């Protein structure tokens, strides 16, 4: 009885709570922000790229966190080209059912796109080394893949970055 009262008091004490929460947040952020630049290309026929974002960890199955494709075509026709995002298709895509819940999104236009993933979404519950992989494949165009290693627990603030040359621009991650 006495114990539970103490807990209640602690929890309701704003100053104390903040004191506890602040260092915890700094040491162990819960969210990864990813900024993906899709370059504007001067080509005769342009289609927005299919993009897959996934997380790899040695010894674990790759975990897809997002796939941007033509998900709203009739009869699911947009899935026909998913295999062109070929490394992703091999490590994860081919075992998924489409539209895949929680990870499916529309293709994005050229520009900077910010997406956020929780630690749970990233499948990064266990502390260790991970790699965020971003692969883009464009209809009648090329394909490019970028890898950004990260570890969890992560430090708040800027994480890794990588720069594409053809189908992807700069891709960067930060943690909060």
């Amino acid at each position, binding site marked *: 009885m006495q114990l539970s009262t103490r807990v209640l008091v602690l929890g309701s004490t704003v100053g104390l709570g903040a004191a506890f929460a602040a260092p915890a947040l700094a040491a162990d952020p819960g969210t990864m922000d990813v900024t993906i630049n899709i370059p504007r290309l001067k080509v005769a026929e342009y289609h927005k790229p299919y993009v897959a974002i996934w997380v790899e960890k040695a010894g674990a199955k790759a975990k897809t966190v997002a796939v941007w494709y033509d998900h709203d075509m009739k009869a699911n026709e947009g899935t*026909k*080209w998913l295999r062109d995002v070929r490394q992703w298709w091999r490590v994860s895509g081919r075992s998924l059912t489409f539209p895949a819940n929680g990870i499916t999104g529309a293709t994005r236009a050229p520009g900077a796109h910010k997406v956020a993933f929780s630690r749970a979404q990233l499948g990064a519950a266990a502390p260790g080394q991970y790699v965020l992989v971003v692969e883009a494949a464009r209809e009648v165009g090329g394909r490019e893949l970028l890898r950004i290693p990260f570890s969890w627990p992560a430090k708040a603030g800027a994480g890794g970055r990588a720069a594409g040359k053809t189908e992807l621009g700069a891709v960067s991650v930060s943690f909060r």
Partner: protein
Amino acid sequence: MNKRFWGFAAGAALTALMAAPASAHRQWMMPSSTVVSGDDVWVTVDAAVSNDLFYFEHQPLRLDAMKAWAPDGTEAAIENKSTGRYRSTFDVHLTQKGTWRIASVADMLMGSYDLNGKTERLPRGTTAANLAERVPAGATNVKTAEANNRNEIFVTVGEPTTTLFKPTGKGIELVPVTHPNDLIAGEAATFQFLFDGKPTAGLPVTVIHGGIRYRDQLGQMDLTTGADGKVEVTWAEPGMYWLNVTTPQVESEEGEGAPPPLARRASYVTTLEVLAP
């Protein structure tokens, strides 16, 4: 020392049986895709017998024995069949997820008989079923040997499956150690080959990268199945590869005149797509 490789001649005879007027050329199938995504997908296949891979420049592959099987083992239709001057073409509607097999298999009898003091060859197209009617009355000393020719390809929708790799026990067959629809340049792949259902060492395996027309050197890999009938192939580049396995060739001296001993023969052909990493 003029050596003649009778295995090649036998291969030519086999091919001839398969695709009527062809001689010692390479037979192959070329699918539009081997790694497929989507809900309502088809594969289109070109099939030909040619020198260069993979160009249709000589004879079409006949489609009489062409069949397709869905991942659950049911036979599927060969649709939109057409045989032109240089190639045949057909479609298969891939209505199930998993690995499909498309194959043309021929089981034949080769051999000879004596009639009126002369030795005659069994005609083309002789099989165990029609042997009795192919051998004329009064023939004696009938000798036969079985010959099996398997030409097959695999196409996978979604995740690769291995449900279709149960061996029939006849001829040369492939057992995946590495799945034939999961091949990446720079990675080594291992396949096991069975001859009449048994893993067999010493089978010659030839692997040739397509695109021969635009390079000077064939660059073929000459491999041999090792213990357990296994062979490892490392793909230097992505692309389509022709893989041929035969029973060992019987060598005989030119000029001796004697035909090679009648032996059980088999050949296996597949086309493998190796993707870029």
